[in-house]
């Protein structure tokens, strides 16, 4: 196949334009000098300046980062344990169920996850007094449940390809099980762990639906701020914010991909 038909090339271009032209326009208009989103009035960085002076957005960014850090770390720990159990213990009661339930959040509609978690938190508060209202903690817990699935899938793939004889060789050479894990297993699956963490972080950072259900009045995340301000009309400030988020997420996802590719 050395010549592409015109039709194929046209479809490809159309597809990419459809996918990326709106994103490109968001980025371009973030540098617009005009207040109107649809009229180009020259290059300017004023909206980025305004963005950094906007306290509501600054607060939301801090909330989002906190939530994402807690959620990614929690998901990494639990997801890794789940993956380890699934790969290393081939036979135990409920293994199939665990495997299915670990990966279910990948396909679960977010609206259902969000709603069910909201109901859970409300019921918990009535029954035990915790959590007192909703906030960073509840969003983080909700995002952990989402992130576990992604971490587990990535780490499971890595562990499945892991050569067990490396661990046996280390055991044979006199390293106890804990040392084997720390000196052999952990360094070799570290790229998958880092990639899993980055993906969980990214997911948490851009989630709107689940966060809306589980957030409290004082814990608005960035996507929630964007969503609510857009309803009042698109401001170029939001374009600037979206551009920044786009850059952060692109870097994180590219990093995760790179980690998974290098042996």
């Amino acid at each position, binding site marked *: 196949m050395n010549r592409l038909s015109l039709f194929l090339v046209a479809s490809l271009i159309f597809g990419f334009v459809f996918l990326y032209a709106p994103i490109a326009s968001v980025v371009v208009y973030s540098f617009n000098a005009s207040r109107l989103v649809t009229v180009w009035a020259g290059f300017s960085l004023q909206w980025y300046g305004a963005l950094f002076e906007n306290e509501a957005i600054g607060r939301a960014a801090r909330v989002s980062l906190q939530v994402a850090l807690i959620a990614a770390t929690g998901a990494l720990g639990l997801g890794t344990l789940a993956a380890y159990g699934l790969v290393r213990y081939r036979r135990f009661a409920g293994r199939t169920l665990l495997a299915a339930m670990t990966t279910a959040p990948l396909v679960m509609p977010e609206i259902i996850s969000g709603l069910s978690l909201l109901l859970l938190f409300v019921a918990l508060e009535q029954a035990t007094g915790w959590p007192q209202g909703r906030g960073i903690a509840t969003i983080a817990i909700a995002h952990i449940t989402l992130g576990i699935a992604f971490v587990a899938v990535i780490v499971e793939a890595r562990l499945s390809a892991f050569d067990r004889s490396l661990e046996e060789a280390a*055991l044979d*050479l006199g390293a106890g099980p804990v040392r084997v894990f720390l000196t052999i297993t952990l360094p070799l699956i570290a790229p998958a762990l880092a990639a899993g963490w980055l993906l969980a972080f990214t997911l948490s950072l851009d989630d709107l639906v689940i966060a809306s259900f589980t957030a409290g009045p004082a814990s608005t995340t960035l996507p929630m701020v964007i969503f609510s301000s857009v309803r009042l009309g698109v401001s170029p400030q939001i374009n600037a914010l979206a551009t920044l988020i786009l850059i952060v997420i692109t870097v994180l996802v590219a990093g995760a991909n790179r980690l998974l590719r290098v042996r």
Partner: protein
Amino acid sequence: MQIERLTKRFEPDAQPAVNNVSLAIDRQEFFALLGPSGCGKTTLLRLIAGFETADTGVIAIDGADMAGVPPYRRPVNIMFQNYALFPHMNVARNVGFGLRQERKPRGAVDARVVALLELVKMRALAARRPGQLSGGERQRVALARALAKEPKLLLLDEPLTALDRKLREEMRFELKHIHQRVGITFLMVTHDQEEAMSMASRLAVMNEGRIEQEGSPEHVYENPANRFVAGFLGAVNLFEGKVAGAEAGLLIVDSEAGRLAVAHSPLAAGTAVAVAIRPEKLRFMTARDTTTPNVLPGIVRTIAYRGEASTCQIELASGQLVRGTMSNGDGKAPVFLPGAALSLSFTPDAARLLQS
């Protein structure tokens, strides 16, 4: 090392992978466990290393019972078939891994690593990662790593299988040489009978979890205990028959290839036996020459030229195909071409009788 009545089943009702095996290996021996794949030899090795637990039986090393001793406390090291080098460490760190676990001072570890790399001729590549090494180089590093802690017993799982033919033959000599220099007991597992015979001082042939025969390579080759051993260790021609009687100190067997005389202690007439004769012990004669005993007339069917000798398939009058070896050495022996009629013969003490 002593193994007594060792049995291991992976499934409760399945055929045991290792079945009632007893074995004694002396200090500084080079012992080979030889068998086809799936015969349980690797399982036996893993039992000794401590990766598997036996159902019944005892493994003792230097008199110490190994039951319940985890792999990291056994005076045994193993060289894996795939070498299992740590990909995230360089050659020197791989070799020094075991020594670092003993928390030896750094200088001592480094000195020992250098000596080991010297021994396997890998000193120049100490800073390389395993991914940058060839198969033969990896094998040397794996060997050095397994020798580093001076184990009482070194286990080698198919040590040469992953190498190409020429390298394999060189490494045979080198492994033997290293064995002599380090004075450690070697226990090698292999499916390659030539490898086992050329390297080991003693070997055991395994099949279906059992040890079929044990002894020096010469003894087992020359006196196979049964049909499996005879066929697995080298090539063999078998003539099925029944004992007819004794005559002039020789046992006479009525076989499908005719009446054969074999040097053997007397057996009751009518006992079912097989006369086993190695290809290289069959003499090739022109068809007219029929003065010696045990003459088998036949026709040459195919000849496989192998350089120093040729392997021939000869069809006997009974229709049975027999394998013979024709030396290409001096150019004086008669040369037969496919289709030629000839007679094969063997002396009564060249053949063996197999009863099982």
